[in-house]
């Protein structure tokens, strides 16, 4: 998991670099600082479990096992991209890893994941063997209608769904207290009688354990779990964000609790992993991403005529 977190981090750092070099079009929404929720959650799931996430979902997709070459090529809008360059940063989709799409519309991925969970439920797998669906969304998304409607049906039909709210304290530039009246986001689940837990989302072990428990519940037919994972995005909402809504001190403080650092401390303290070993894992990830960037850069751009492809099935 430590290595995978690094892979995410390296990927996104490379993207920021490429964005500044104007190699990436559109907007870029890094999830740097939120890797523990992504990796902890996806490692607790099966490869064939379903997932939806958001424009800030690169780490989640990488955690779920997306091919980083194809992902990076997509960032550069290349024909070899995961969506042939058509989707770009916000629409990675790969059914082979259960990924039913990032999404550029806040909240929209939640009902889609609920539908995948209903599909899983309809498959009538033996007890404990059902697929589950997970959906990643932010603290701002809990105020969208689509989220609400999906929450209600998920609980009503006891769907095998995990609702993972990455509470990074801001929705774009709006602080949490300006967007909902709750002291604890997880309390939103009370209005649906849904099982909910609040955890430290930068503690990868806590995330892993919580999602394991949630998926067991789900596979056993006991219904959905709402997880509020407290985390922090260390970069702006998007590259170019002036970040006037928070202080440099706040970010600096948060940096001290960032998940890769913490996982590294843990590995050193409890598992006797050496600093060198950790650095080697980081270097390995970096090399993997360097190769992905090379692959992406060398890949051909799509031809204009390709707009007519992949339109109808």
């Amino acid at each position, binding site marked *: 998991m430590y290595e995978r977190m690094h892979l995410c981090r390296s990927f996104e750092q490379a993207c920021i670099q490429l964005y500044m070099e104007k190699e990436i079009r559109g907007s870029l929404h890094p999830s740097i600082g939120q890797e523990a929720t992504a990796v902890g959650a996806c490692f607790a799931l099966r490869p064939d479990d379903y997932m939806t996430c958001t424009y800030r979902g690169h780490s989640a997709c990488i955690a779920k096992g997306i091919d980083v070459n194809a992902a990076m090529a997509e960032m550069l809008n290349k024909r070899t991209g995961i969506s042939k360059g058509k989707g770009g940063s916000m629409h990675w989709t790969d059914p082979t890893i259960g990924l039913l799409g990032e999404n550029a519309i806040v909240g929209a991925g939640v*009902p889609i994941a609920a539908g995948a969970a209903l599909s899983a439920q309809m498959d009538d797998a033996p007890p404990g063997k059902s697929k589950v669906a997970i959906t990643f969304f932010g603290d701002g998304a809990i105020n969208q209608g*689509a989220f609400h409607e999906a929450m209600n049906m998920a609980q009503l039909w006891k769907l095998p769904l995990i609702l993972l709210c990455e509470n990074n304290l801001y929705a774009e530039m709006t602080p949490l207290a300006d967007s909902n009246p709750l002291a604890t986001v997880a309390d939103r689940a009370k209005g649906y009688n849904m099982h909910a837990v609040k955890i430290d989302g930068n503690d990868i072990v806590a995330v892993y354990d919580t999602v394991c428990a949630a998926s067991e519940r789900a596979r056993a037919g006991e219904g959905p779990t709402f997880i509020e994972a407290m985390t922090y995005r260390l970069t702006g909402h998007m590259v170019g964000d002036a970040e006037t809504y928070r202080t440099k001190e706040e970010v600096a403080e948060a940096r001290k609790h960032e998940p890769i650092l913490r996982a590294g401390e843990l590995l050193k303290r409890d598992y006797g992993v050496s600093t060198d070993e950790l650095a080697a894992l980081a270097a390995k990830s970096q090399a993997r991403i360097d190769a992905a960037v090379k692959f992406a850069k060398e890949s051909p751009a799509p031809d204009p005529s390709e707009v007519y492809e992949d339109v109808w099935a």
Partner: protein
Amino acid sequence: MRELTYTQALREALSEEMERDGKIVLMGEDIGHYGGVFRVTEGLIEKFGPKRVKDTPISEAGFVGMAVGMAMTGQRPVAELMFMDFALVCADQIWNQAAKLRSMSGGRVKVPLVIRAQQGGGRGNGAQHSESFETLFTHLPGMKVALPSTPADAKGLLKSALRQDDPVMFIEHKLLYNTKGPVPDGDVTIPFGKADVKREGTDLTIVSYSRQLLFALEAAETLQKEHGISAEVIDLRTTVPMDMDTIVTSLKKTHKLLVTHESHSSCGIGAEVAMRVMEQAFYELDAPIVRVAGLDLPIHSARPLEEKVLPQPSAIVEGALKLLK
């Protein structure tokens, strides 16, 4: 041939296809135990069980979104909107999600979803229960759009819809449900993108679809009887894809075109047909194309107002006479 109502024809299509394909699942409000407010799904829950005929809460964005997720994971959902007007509470899931996922993902997923809804005015239901939205579905890309006018077309087109892997907006009309017509026995499908000449004629071509097609036929009858004018009436049947060949072929004979639809005029199907004719067969036109369509106004409840906003057969007759003058 046996006669069925439009409702019965739709129900047969659903039932036969659900037997053929175990992945077809129906979702919507009051469609299960109650059998649907317009009775289309009557008896289906008894036959296929509550797992395949799912009553939902009043959460259109939620269940259409779920249907999108189901469609990507091996099911073949049919989501029913009780009134087309409610497409506006789930518009994001329709046009930003269902319609785009395939293209946007570079073909990585397909979304074999059928949305069924009834639309249209004529019953005095007022502005929020009488709209027609085929224009929106034709303008915003990504969905195929069917609007059958007869029971036979309803059955054949719905069967086709349930056998293709693209999202389909299947549009019924509330005032067609009780209409009757011959429906062939057996497994007859009707392809999308193939217009149907519902009446042959030589003096002008009238293009329409859905309930307005019946008005067009009524007008053609009046034109023949009272004015000795022979109108050819073409039923588009689907607006995506749109079959221009049948229209152009007819125009080569009549050289005059009238397009009529119930939905609002501006930027409607009439304008689109006109534009395409302009592009493909401008020099076949002996006179400017005439449009007879809904006014650009909300649809009022009072009958005299509703019948002013929505074009009646008499308006088509008038339009045709103007065209032939």
